Structure formats: C-alpha cells, structure tokens
C-alpha cells in the first residue's frame, strides 16, 4: 500500500526467457508505435508551435524572429481576440462568457434533472432523450439550431412561437448582442445529457437512508437538494465542470457552422480564432500564439488530472 505502483508481475526478466538480459525489449516493442506517433505528431509539434509563436512564421517556417510581437498584438491590438473596454468583447472574452454561463447552467440543469428523473418510472427514457445530442455531430446540431432560430416565422420554430405571443421576428444569430447567448443555449442543450448521466450515477450512490432520515426530520425538498445531494456529489460535479471547461476551450465545430464567428467577429472563440488566423489568413506565427494560449489554458487541467490520477493510484 505504500508504493503508488500498479500491480506488477514479479518475474525477474520480462517474459522470463532471457535471464541476465535486463533491457526491457518487451516494453519497447509494445510501447514503440505509440511512443513514435506521440513523439512525432504530438510532442514535437507542441514544442514547434510554442517556439513559432515568437516568429513571423511565414509558410509555417521560422522566417524571422519577432520576439513577443505576436503576443503583444494578441492581447493589446486585436479587438477580435480581446478588447478590454466596457463591455469587454473578443474571442477570449467570449470563452469567459461560455465558461461562466455554459458550465454553471449545464451542471445545475443536469443535477436538477438527475434528481427529478429518479422520481419517475420513465427515468431511463428521459435520460436517453436528453443524452441523445451527445451522439450527434456538432455540425448537425448546428444545422438543427440554425433552423430553429431561422428569422422567418414560417420556417423557424422559435419565431413561430414568438409570433403567437406577438413578439418578433427576431434574428438571434444575426445580432451581436444576442448571438453568444443563443450559442450558449445550444451548447447547454447539447451537454445537459452528459452532466445528467454522470451526476445521476453519483446521486444513486447516496444512501437512501440518509435521504429518508432527512425527510423524517422534516427537511423540505430544496433543503435536501442543496444541503445533502449537492455536497455529497461535489466530486463528480467538479469532474463534470472541469470537462465542460475543457469543452469550452476546445469549442470549434458549433461556432464554425452556426455563425462562422459572426456577425462580424462577435461570436468568435479562441479555437475559432486559431483556425481563422492560421489557415484562411495564413498568419502562422500569430496562429501559433493562439494555439499556445489554448495550451496554457489547459495546463491547470493537466495538473488537476495528474493529481487526481496520483491520488487514485495511492488508494489502490
């Protein structure tokens, strides 16, 4: 129990066939293909991209060194990436909006739905229905929701419903003030099922005696929710929240298909900016700087994962 090691076969040499030959040939053979691919396509490009962010990077090559120019431009001179005024805007700011609203609403909605679903007989059905978007390509989700949001009330369901209430027609995706909220709503719609399924499994793990005892003592349902269920599933909640934050940092397909970052650049997110600056625009050094920002934003999650894994290994 002291070592953090997983169980290990206790033979002297691997395979036990070459006594005295201590070089781990078996490990090399089994790890070789993965190691090669990871080194060539993952580790090397990461280093390359970080260094390229300090270069103009024409054609993806190290053409001329520009020091921190790309970085300074990114954070101070590119309103499409970050404009700190009131209200702030830009791709990085939109990611902040996504993290705050998409993550909190998805977690809360998922939790409430998981609790409510346990009380009905069609629990499995309602969870499957809400989980369904997880199986669908973001490209298709984007088309489904462009259709719902379509400004023509004879086409778009949302404006048809608003029309009944004599509101409208509104173009949520065509207005810079509403576009991000409309997109976040689609993001929530797509992810609630994921949160529900994971949190539901955690809630089922709560001893029913605890809940019954609280009810007998006269606790109301909101009290049970906030004072018992939420604290008891706080670890799964944090895992779901971290996963959703990672989703936001990598978010691309939905934005690309629904708005292409528009109108103007009002709905861009960092992953979109990275693609846009690097490929259609061909600014490789600048794109490399944005990719490095993404990597840096994910480093805390990397550390969180490593810590979590180490803790689990010690428990074994």
């Amino acid at each position, binding site marked *: 129990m002291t070592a953090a090691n*997983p*169980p*290990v*076969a206790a*033979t002297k040499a*691997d*395979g*036990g066939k070459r006594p005295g030959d201590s070089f*781990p040939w*078996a*490990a090399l053979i*089994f790890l070789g293909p993965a*190691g090669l*691919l*990871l080194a060539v*396509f993952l*580790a090397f*490009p990461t280093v*390359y991209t970080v260094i390229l962010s300090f270069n103009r990077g024409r054609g*993806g090559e190290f053409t001329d060194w520009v020091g921190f120019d790309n970085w300074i431009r990114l954070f101070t001179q590119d309103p499409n990436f970050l404009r700190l005024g009131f209200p702030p805007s830009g791709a990085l700011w939109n990611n902040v909006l996504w993290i705050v609203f998409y993550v909190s609403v998805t977690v809360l909605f998922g939790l409430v*739905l998981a609790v409510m*679903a346990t*009380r*009905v007989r*069609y629990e499995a059905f*309602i969870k499957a*229905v809400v*989980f*369904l978007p997880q*199986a669908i*390509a*973001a*490209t*298709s989700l984007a*088309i*489904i929701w462009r259709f*719902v949001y*379509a400004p023509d009330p*004879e*086409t778009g*369901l949302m404006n*048809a419903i608003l029309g009944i209430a004599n509101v409208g027609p509104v173009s949520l995706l065509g207005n810079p003030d509403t576009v991000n909220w409309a997109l976040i709503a689609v993001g929530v*719609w797509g992810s609630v099922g*994921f949160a529900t399924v*994971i949190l539901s*499994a955690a809630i089922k793990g709560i001893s029913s005696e605890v809940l019954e005892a609280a009810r007998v003592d006269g606790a109301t349902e909101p009290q049970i929710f906030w004072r018992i269920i939420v604290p008891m599933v706080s670890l799964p909640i944090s895992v*779901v929240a971290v996963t959703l934050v*990672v989703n936001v940092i990598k978010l*691309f397909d939905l934005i*690309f298909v629904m708005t292409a970052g528009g109108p103007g650049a009002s709905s861009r997110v960092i992953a979109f900016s990275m693609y846009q600056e*690097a490929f259609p625009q061909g600014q*490789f050094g600048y*794109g490399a700087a944005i*990719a490095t920002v*993404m*990597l840096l934003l*994910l*480093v805390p999650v*990397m550390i969180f994962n490593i810590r979590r*894994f180490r803790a689990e290994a010690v428990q074994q």
Partner: protein
Amino acid sequence: MTALEDTTVRSQPRTLSERLARMAGKSPTHIILGLIGLIWLVPTIGILITSFRPSADMRSTGWWTILFEPRFTLGNYQRVFEAEGMGGAFLNSLFITIPSTILPLVIASMAAYALAWVKFPLRDTTFLIIVAMLMVPVQVGFIPLVTGFRESGTGLLTNYGAVWLAHTAYALPFGIFLLRNFFITLPKDLIEAARIDGASNVGIFRTIVVPLSVPAIAAYGIFQFLWVWNDLLMALVYAQRNSIQPMTVKVTQLLGTYATEWSLLAAAAFLIMIVPLVVFISLQRYFVQGLLAGSVK
C-alpha cells in the same frame, strides 16, 4: 444494492383515489419533465420532417403544418446524395473513420499492456506524461504538421494519410489512459501463472488481456468511432482535397451555397446523424460507458 431496492419499492397505492392523489402530488415533476422531453426532441424531429418535405412546401409553411398537409418525398436525399456529392462524402467519412478507429485501438492496447503488466524503468513517469498529453489541444499540431505534410512530398494531405495519422496520434493518450486503467484491474494471479507456464508477453496480451478486456476496448472503439465520424475540425485541416472530404466538411460547403434551402440541409444533416444514432440505439450501454470514461478527455 439490496438496501436501495428495498426503499425504492414503496407501498403500492391500493385504491384509485390514492393513485390519483399520488399522481397529482407528482404532477409538477411530470409537467417539467414532459416539457424538457419536448425541448430535447422537437428540434431534431423538425429537421427530420423537413428532410422529407418537398422544398416548395418548406418555403411556404413551417414543418409543424405537416399534420394538416402530410406530403413526403425522398427527393431531398436523392439530390444531396447524387447531385451534391454527399454520397461520395458518406464513403469518405467511412474511409476516414474506420482506420482512424482501428489504428488507435491496436496501438493504444499494446501500449496500455506495457504500462500495466511489463516491468520497465520509469514506467509510472511514462504514464504520467501520457496523462498530461490528454490535455494537449489538437490546435498545437496544425501548423507544424500541415507544413511538414506539405513539404514531405508524400501527398498525405490529399490522400487520407494525414487525417488517419493525426486522428490516431491525438486519440492515443485517452485510449492508453482508459485501457491501462482497465488492464491493471485484471487478476494478477492469472497473468503470473501464464508467465510461469512460459507464456510470452505477446501470448499473454493476445490470449488473456485482450479477450478479458473486450468491454473496455469496445467502449473505447465506439467512443473513437463517433469522435472521428462527427469531427469537422481535423478534416478541415488535414483533408485538403474535395474528393476525400467527409460529410461534415461537405455540409459546411452546402451551407455556403444553399443557406436557406432547409430541405437539402436537413437531409444532409440527417445523413451525418444516421450512423451515430444507429450506434447509440444499438450499443447504448457501451456508448455511455465510453463517454463516462471519456469525461477526462
């Protein structure tokens, strides 16, 4: 488990009035869940119905009027499949997805075996590096890899090679992580006994570890298959010729040409969804398992 079942089986209502009272007490729950069910199903049903409506109808009335004027056609599917190239793109999606699923499955299983059951120096450090790699975004690969593929003169960007390699490499950290964590739960005695009987690592891997790990390998395989099938970004970057692009890329091109031809777009969107929906419905258990395990990706 039994404790949980005991309390969930509460006393059954005996009379009709008791039953009605219980339903009334629960009715807010039913109404809210019913509403949620509608919000989650209706948008998808809308696109499905639209994909079967004649485009003249689509232009004049909303899809919900289908109740009053039920007219259906397969014309939209025929048109996107044949004239708009979704048929070829469907095949491309398969050509891209199948190798991009099998390759990481094999390579990650092998690596996971070494990390779980072969003793070598720095094994835990190696595994921690792979856990760290889980969080490396695909974007850091774009510029060096596209540049490298282009300059290599191998045509990989126009012949599926680049998509396969990129998908495989970026799937490995998660696959290795998932499978290694499953492999170490296999009974140690079994593997040691096989070693004492003279089985080689290859033998142990093929005859013990893989057959006993089918659920985990299947979950990862399904997860990876759907990941690649549904992917747009990697295909945009690494599949740089029209004739090799998958459906997700083709749909974005259709969207540029026919922004309001919803019948065509709906048919195209639904073509992408068919395979995942079939997988989801038929293999739901593995799918959910893969996804739950994937909550670290």
